[in-house]
């Protein structure tokens, strides 16, 4: 079997002590990042990319480290959801709904174990799904010309804007901002400079890492300054930990269903983990007989969304690796990492760099096992770290952001630019404008524009070329549906109540 021999290649690289150590560090740091409220996976990975460059890691090491952080953050998000009723990251939001009530009933330990196991099931099966589906998807490479890519990028913006956010208009505004920022720099088709104001630092365009660290990490610091670091005390006691086999057995169906739903949501370009956990929760509630107990501490309400968001995290890697289109904010950040490492994700990645792909996949499997061990017996360690006061944490984040960006680009201009993006991110969050479409716009803007213009060159300016193949037509239809449908579906699929922070 091809897959098995490829996996063997992957494991032969991933099982070296050095790579294992990186995976371990990544899992540990990732779990902390996920658990700390506010520092979500996108922020965490964005913050660590410049650092991993300045440490001089090669492509595989950097990838293993950062994807371990990514998976780790998905595990970690549940800890503060359950103990603090504050989602450690956005996808963990659904876990608060039943996790916190369980903790209040004195079942915090059980909730943590169930969600940990659910995370493992979701992430593990999704990685298996990635192994099976990715090579198959990689074979469609030769069917993608400029028109198909253009339609695919369109689909990514639509599904992200449509399903991933609450307000279509605002996410469209954000996407346009991102596309606008992407126009800065030398135009590849005419060699003309656009919006560079003769400043040579802008000739190459805005570095997406600068934008990402600014929009995610620096804006987080601003949010913290505003809130004076409230909401960081643990309100629930964590008793002894033991493995509740009975509850695990009861929730296994929920985990599997959550995994399936989450995985499919993850594959959709632009949809991502938040949608995965949301659909998994809603789906689980819909099929269960005791609907009323959801939101009051039903273990299945913990298992399903956790399996869902971890499965989506794995699924989201598929479009990112095979098509170069990220499925979520964090995969957008990982895409930026790959591009900076001079690895062009896309259909050819699997044939050109099997070592990269398969060692990445192997380390995802290893990281999962590590994370299960870390997050079930050792969860108390992370609970302790959660008590780190924000006044220690946030200056640390600020320092890492500045040092990281400077060590990567060596330019003070980029640091100022990063702060400017931090302000932009802060303003956007205040106005409830999502920042992920901005990142997606910066990342995909140039490619999208180039594909559009390439299509025009090849077809002598005939616009029907964009709709000339079944693949592109289906992307157009899916894109429009993905953007418009949620407006109507929202009436039927009311979101469950948003978690609120208890004052007592």
């Amino acid at each position: 079997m091809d897959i098995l021999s490829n996996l063997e290649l992957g494991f032969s690289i991933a099982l070296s002590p050095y790579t294992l150590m990186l995976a371990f560090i990544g899992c540990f740091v990732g779990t902390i990042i996920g658990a700390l409220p506010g520092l979500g996976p996108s922020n965490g990975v964005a913050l660590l990319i410049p650092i991993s460059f300045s440490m001089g890691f090669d492509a595989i090491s950097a990838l293993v480290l950062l994807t371990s952080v990514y998976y780790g953050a998905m595990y970690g998000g549940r800890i503060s959801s359950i103990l603090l009723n504050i989602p450690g990251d956005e996808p963990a939001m659904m876990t608060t709904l039943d996790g916190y009530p369980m903790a209040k009933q004195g079942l915090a330990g059980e909730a943590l174990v169930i969600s940990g196991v659910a995370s493992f099931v979701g992430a593990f099966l999704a990685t298996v799904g990635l192994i099976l589906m990715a090579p198959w998807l990689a074979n469609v490479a030769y069917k993608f010309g400029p028109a198909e890519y253009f339609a695919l990028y369109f689909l990514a913006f639509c599904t992200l804007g449509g399903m991933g956010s609450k307000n279509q208009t605002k996410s469209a505004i954000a996407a346009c901002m991102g596309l606008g920022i992407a126009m800065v720099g030398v135009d590849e088709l005419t060699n003309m400079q656009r919006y560079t104001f003769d400043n040579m630092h802008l000739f190459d365009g805005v570095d997406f890492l600068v934008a990402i660290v600014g929009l995610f990490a620096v804006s987080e610091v601003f949010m913290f300054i505003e809130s004076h670091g409230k909401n960081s005390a643990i309100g629930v006691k964590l008793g002894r930990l033991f493995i509740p086999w009975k509850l695990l057995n009861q929730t296994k169906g929920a985990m599997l269903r959550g995994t399936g739903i989450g995985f499919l949501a993850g594959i959709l370009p632009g949809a991502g983990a938040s949608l995965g956990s949301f659909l998994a929760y809603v789906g689980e509630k819909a099929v269960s007989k005791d609907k009323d107990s959801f939101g009051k501490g039903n273990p299945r309400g913990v298992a399903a969304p956790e399996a869902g968001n971890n499965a989506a995290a794995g699924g989201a890697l598929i479009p990112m690796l095979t098509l170069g289109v990220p499925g979520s904010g964090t995969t957008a950040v990982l895409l930026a990492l790959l591009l900076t490492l001079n690895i062009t994700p896309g259909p050819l990645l699997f044939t050109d760099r099997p070592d990269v792909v398969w060692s990445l996949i192997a380390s995802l499997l290893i990281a999962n096992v590590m994370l299960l061990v870390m997050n079930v017996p050792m969860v108390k360690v992370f609970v302790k770290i959660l008590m780190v006061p924000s006044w220690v944490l946030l200056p640390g984040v600020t320092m890492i952001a500045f040092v990281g960006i400077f060590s990567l680009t060596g330019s003070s201009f980029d640091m100022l630019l990063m702060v400017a993006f931090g302000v932009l991110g802060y303003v956007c969050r205040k106005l409830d404008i999502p920042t992920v479409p901005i990142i997606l716009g910066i990342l995909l803007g140039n490619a999208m524009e180039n594909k559009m213009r390439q299509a025009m060159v090849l077809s002598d300016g005939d616009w029907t070329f964009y709709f000339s193949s079944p693949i592109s037509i289906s992307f157009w239809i899916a894109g429009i549906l993905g953007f418009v449908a949620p407006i109507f579906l929202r009436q039927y699929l009311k979101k469950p109540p948003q978690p609120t922070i208890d004052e007592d």
Partner: protein
Amino acid sequence: MKMTMLKVLGTSALLSAMSVSSASATECIAPANPGGGWDFTCRQIGNILYEIKAVDAPVRVTNMAGGGGGVAFAHVASERSTDADLIVAASSATTTRLAQNAFAGLTADMVRFVGAIGADPGVIVVAKDSPLKNLSDMVEAIKADPGSVAFAGGSAVGGFDHMKPLQVMKAAGFNDITKIKYIGVDGGADAITQTIGGFTQAMTGDMSEIVGFIRSGDVRALAVLTEERVPGFEDIPTAREQGFDVVAVNWRGLYVPKDISDADFNMWAERLQKVADSDQWKAAMTENGLAPFTKVGGDFQSWVDGVIADTVVLSKEIGVIQ
């Protein structure tokens, strides 16, 4: 105000740090982020220089990304123009951009090109089932209907890959070169995918980009744009032997600051020649799909001047520059 002060302090601190260190060791600036071709040039040449004892201390590699190499070029031209311990990685992309005024008014005579010690040969390939069997077929097809053969390449419009088919067509006496279709995609592999997928009819790129696809039999090379056939790929004919006198190689080399003494310039030319002759460099070339291409010192400078002049003419014809 305070900001400006800090900036000034920072800059002077940086500069003094640089001048202190440059007194003791050679610095090689790679005008891009780690991982690319320029970074490779600096690190390989730097390591070998030290290994063969052409320099006393290890060469320090600085990555100075920005402006497609323009930030580093401006830095060298304006602030380091007398630094004899400074070398900067360069390639065909550097001279193409200089010719097309992509460095905000900076010109090639602001530095001295000291040598190239390897090159990635230019190639033109087609899908294995293409009706075009050789370069003449391609030329005739374009002469008959310029829109019938679209090219894909890894560089932007007006970039090095775009120039290759234009040069061939000019050599064939076809002057209506704006009619030739070209799309610039993300790198050579992507360009090959577009060609195998039938979206474009031919691909123009560097030898190192197509090696895997030639071996797997997915594509056929119509011509390699070198003076002689490339070792290891003797079955690919050159454009020259098919009657089109075009040589286009993506060279890997160095430039040095303008105002260093002729003695220093010649010393760098000699050092580079030593690297070119070393076994280490030969091994590095084979590993990275480079063909031998050694031109150093005054020879190289005049060759670069010629290439830039040709590029200016072609760029004007296709309207990339005025």
